[in-house]
């Protein structure tokens, strides 16, 4: 990005409300398409609800719901992110250089969330079309009730991966501690390798071979109740 052209916002002097309001201004993409945010100090709801093709670099750690409900924007967090980063994002890109806490990308509809560290529990919970790529590990219950979209984990996955999964596609390269209810391993097809390659390339995750991943998906036994597997609920 062109640092010289960036609008600088310092949250030590500017209230969060003022900064978010600036991001929400109807003409923000024309007036200030590039931003640098300093001193976030773990602020919550930073850069949420943006609907413009702007680029924001955040120098530091953010709290909950950073880039929540993001549309079109590219938000790059140079630090750690709290609960619910990019929750319900519909389009755009969110990059976390550090770790993401619980419920990263929760109920995301689209766009790309790239976590370069590890993500904690419930990464991609209720995902509805978002693509999530995690360089490190994910915690327990990743992609719980995941409906659509793609989760790629280059590291390990914790307990209960893909519990109650619908049609989201999960790819894990490392160890899976355990699979959740109705989640099974599925064969890695040619198309899956292509999907992996494309997303990994887009995230600049080089030196990671799509063939090293295993695919996980829904067994679809919870789709139609049968009393004989009532214990699965």
């Amino acid at each position, binding site marked *: 990005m062109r640092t010289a052209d960036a609008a600088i916002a310092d949250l030590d002097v500017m209230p969060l409300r003022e900064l978010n309001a600036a991001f929400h201004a109807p003409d923000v993409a024309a007036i200030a398409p590039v931003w640098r945010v300093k001193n976030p100090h773990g602020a919550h709801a930073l850069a949420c609800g943006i609907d413009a093709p702007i680029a924001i670099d955040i120098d530091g750690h953010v709290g909950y*719901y950073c880039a929540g409900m993001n549309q079109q924007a590219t938000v790059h967090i140079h630090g750690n992110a709290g609960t619910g980063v990019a929750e319900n994002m519909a389009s755009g890109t969110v990059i976390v250089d550090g770790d993401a806490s619980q419920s990263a990308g929760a109920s995301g509809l689209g766009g790309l969330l790239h976590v370069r560290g590890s993500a904690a529990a419930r990464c991609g919970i209720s995902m509805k079309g978002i693509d999530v790529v995690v360089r490190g590990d994910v915690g327990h219950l990743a992609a719980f009730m995941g409906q659509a979209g793609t989760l790629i984990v280059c590291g390990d996955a914790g307990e209960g991966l893909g519990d109650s999964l619908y049609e989201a596609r999960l790819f894990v390269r490392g160890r899976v501690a355990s699979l959740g209810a109705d989640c099974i391993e599925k064969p890695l097809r040619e198309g899956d390798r292509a999907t992996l390659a494309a997303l990994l390339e887009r995230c600049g995750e080089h030196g990671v071979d799509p063939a090293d991943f295993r695919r996980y998906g829904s067994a679809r036994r919870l789709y139609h109740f049968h009393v004989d597997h009532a214990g699965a609920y």
Partner: protein
Amino acid sequence: MASARGSALPPVFSATFDEFSLAEIRRAAATGVYDIRGMGAKRRLPHFDDLLLLGASISRYPLEGYREKCDTRVTIGARFASKPIELAIPITIAGMSFGALSAQAKEALGRGASAMGTSTTTGDGGMTAEERRHSTQLVYQVLPSRYGLNADDLRRADAIEIVVGQGAKPGGGGMLLGQKIDERVAAMRTLPAGIDQRSACRHPDWTGPDDLAIKILELREITDWRTPIYVKVGASRPYYDTALAAKSGADAVVIDGMQGGTAATQTTFIENVGLPTIAAIRPAVAALEELGLYRTVQLIVSGGIRSGADVAKALALGADAVSIGTAALVALGDNDPAYEAEYAALGTTAGAYDAWHEGRDPAGITTQDPVLAARLDPVAAGKRLANYLSVLTLETQALARACGKSHVNHLEPEDLVALTVEAAAMARVPLAGTDWIPGNPTMARGDA
């Protein structure tokens, strides 16, 4: 064969193993799955019928019915939002989803509510274009499932309602086995068509009031602090829930008593979990009063509101407004005896039809079937709803005037008495003709 007892006695039915219990046991044995249905608690519960209003006498004076004003306007959400909801009447339409209801039904609700200057609410499935077009004031629900939730609709909404629970199933969600998802609904919810629906019972990205406070902050930031935010709970621990919702930053709290209807959930849930509506209101008010937030944070009450008397009594107990669900559907034409032959074919009868999840509603309301749905004329049905809301309002005003009130929100608990000990204890008003309020009316338990 003569019985050992000699001349035959009439058969004796057990009150415990009654006709319904026996049928339910047989059904469970046959299917191996729990029963689900709509419509809310059907059992008899202490309710507004057990409360009476004390009209004017010598010590109090009434207002003239036709000349002297009895204001019905209510503002919801001025605590933090820059564009609060201005209601012409203190009766709103509760959240009911497109998916549970037909598009025509949602349109009718919008038309009727808008004609009367009040709001409708989306449901579990998101906002439809028809709904937004036909409602002048639309409350947008944020539910655990997050089906259909998106920022564009959030910004188009006039208010936001974070749903923690509802009266029919506080704490519930779960598999709604047998409630099938049809094509249009599936597309809106990003789900495969034709499968059993599941409902998350907790939100995916927050649990507990400390995190709710942060969630509310996020929604405020996304809507630039314009939009009022309600928190809705099923009546369970209304004192604590109201306090926590207020502390978390809500503009309004919606409390839904167990009489509240639903599209479909486990029958066992509907009938056995929650509080009767009249037991939920005073604790919620007490919580707000202790925080110094009564009337600053508004209280909207739902669950079995049927008549202007119910509205007036709910307001007297301390609600700022009420919300109706089942009653609105009946006003549109739900369970209409005109369709009796079809109800009979479904194994039920007008007034008892509650299999709303099956989508075969002869009235065309709780269905996605295009043939059935076409039976409901949204314009005519909207007019029926407007008529009904008008009657509710006139009745409420008549009762309020009779109690000497120039604004319906000036009704207070001291305008009420109870007919039963239970209602007196729950509503914390005296038994009629006495000054006795049974039970310990304090809510704050403090430290031992």
